């Protein structure tokens, strides 16, 4: 069976975020693009399923500027994915989750999979829209905030859990389907050095920018336009409460919460 895992290049967590000169986006200067967070959990889930069902192939698919996409695809290969597809973003195309979904849908029509995995959101724009939108385009059900996906014998069905408000929902679902995974529940593996070196030479399939441009054209009039990207004003640090006894500290804090911050219930 074929599993596809959608991965997005995001700035390394250590990146010092900075607006670009126009103030309309992240300044990409000096940013290290990595496979991170939710996507690591999705890749880990794909690899666990592959290990549990012999004959399963895992294909990582990434949409973005080719240089960045290739970087995270090689990281996915180093972790154990079998194949990779780079979906090349046309120059200057709108950065919108629904446009991204249309581009990924094109890739999935060329490299079909019975199970599509992704993170429930990415650590940059955090829209959480790409997975469900891809599922709608593929006309398959989607299962969000998922953990613990297991394939049943034959790979026609799966069981999974959804981590929702107040607990875990247990579900049984048919394939094909799309599953958007929760982050950091499965302790993602790290790549071994020989595999990292080997991944540098691994072949990457490509969906050319011109094909992507045609596939997303219908969606572009609906794309959101970023007018501003800013950093929050620096926090000036806490106002410290002076006190002599614990009781005095408590009374002062409650008074502040009630009268100044107005958040006392």
């Amino acid at each position, binding site marked *: 069976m074929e599993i596809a895992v959608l991965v997005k290049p995001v700035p390394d*967590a250590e990146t010092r*975020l900075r607006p670009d000169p126009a103030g309309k986006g*992240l300044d990409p200067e000096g940013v290290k693009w990595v496979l991170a*967070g939710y996507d690591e959990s999705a890749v880990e889930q794909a690899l666990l399923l592959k290990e549990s069902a012999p004959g399963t192939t895992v294909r990582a698919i990434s949409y973005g500027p080719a240089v960045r996409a290739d970087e995270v695809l090689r990281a996915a290969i180093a972790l154990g994915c079998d194949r990779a597809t780079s979906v090349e973003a046309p120059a200057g195309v709108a950065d919108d*989750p*629904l446009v991204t*979904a249309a581009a990924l849908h094109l890739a999935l029509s060329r490299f079909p999979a019975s199970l599509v995995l992704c993170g*429930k959101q990415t*650590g*940059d*724009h*955090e*829209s959480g*829209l790409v*997975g*469900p*939108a891809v*599922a*709608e*385009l593929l006309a398959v*059900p*989607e299962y*969000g*905030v998922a953990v613990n996906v297991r394939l049943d014998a034959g790979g026609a069905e799966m069981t999974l859990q*959804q981590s929702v*408000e*107040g*607990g*875990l*929902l*247990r*579900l*049984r679902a048919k394939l094909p389907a799309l599953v958007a995974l929760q*982050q*950091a529940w499965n302790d993602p593996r790290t790549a071994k050095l020989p595999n990292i070196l080997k991944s540098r030479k691994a072949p990457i399939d490509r969906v050319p920018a011109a094909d992507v441009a045609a596939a997303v054209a219908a969606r572009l009039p*609906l*794309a*959101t*336009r*970023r*007018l*501003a*990207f*800013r*950093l*929050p004003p620096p*926090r000036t*640090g*806490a106002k*410290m*409460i002076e006190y002599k006894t*614990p*009781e005095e*500290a*408590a009374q002062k804090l*409650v008074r502040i*919460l009630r009268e100044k*911050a107005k*958040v006392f*219930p």
Partner: protein
Amino acid sequence: MTGAVVWLERTSTGVAGASREAVGVARSIAGGGPVVGLLVGAGGPSAAERIPVDRLLLVDAPGLADASSAQLAALLAAAAAASGADSMVLAGTARGRDVVGRLAVRWGAAAATNVTDLVAGGSGELHVTRPVFGGRASETLELPGPRRILAPRPHAFAEPPPASAAPPSEALVLPDGFSALPGRGMEGFEPTVGSKGPELGEASIVVSGGRGLRTPESFHLVEELAESLGAAVGASRAVTDAGWRPSSYQVGQTGRAVSPQLYIAVGISGAIQHIVGMVSSRVIVAINSDAQAPIFKVADYGIVGDLFPILPALTAEIRRQRGLTGSAPG
């Protein structure tokens, strides 16, 4: 912009607070047109009787209490067609956001989630602001019309005052092909063990404990403080990694991101991975024995000192101020 449809997400106690906030957002982008609530699941309109919508559309079907996102997207599109609305608002809950992604495709609309602020201009333009990078930055987006879907971030917008009278309601006719849509395939539900009080992501107050509590036995001090405030309980990664509390309590980059009105960090030093999960809270209070702890850089108010006498004193003061006596509040 004229008219908006709001999905009124049900909880065990009625309509989710985040959905009531969504009604207020719908009013501000409806351009004077009607705000229509969609209520799906078993039971009549009583769950929504004080919700300030102009009209309620009902899908009274017990089997749809746990509808799939595909089913909800189809029902919302039908509700928009029935009411002529060109905007939709869904609470930014886990379920709500899944529906938005499908709906944006099915209904052909621009969409934005995690919205914390918006400006609806007089000539129909709509600009929204949303935090990105875990609250380390924010962006302002323009949503082209005519169709738009917004998912406001829970607690980012005020709940509108309740209506004085119940809105008129009618049944929504199921759209063609509805019965062919897959359901959710739910087999069972395992409640989070030991969780009391409101849910982390929904709570308007969160009290989190960290390694400063020293032992799992002293974590009850955090829980008692939370209980006195009617708050949800969270924890730092150090606490969940050590197994003092399950991972579902974890607030941070690798756990839950929360944005309550009030966040109280107790004995949490403030590693960046924790900060990104709570920094967009409205008011942050830190209580820590180390005056140099990085948590005080993001907090609004700080108390430096020994947690062990301060926490019971604070819990007692809050109980006294709220008129709570010895037993737990209802």
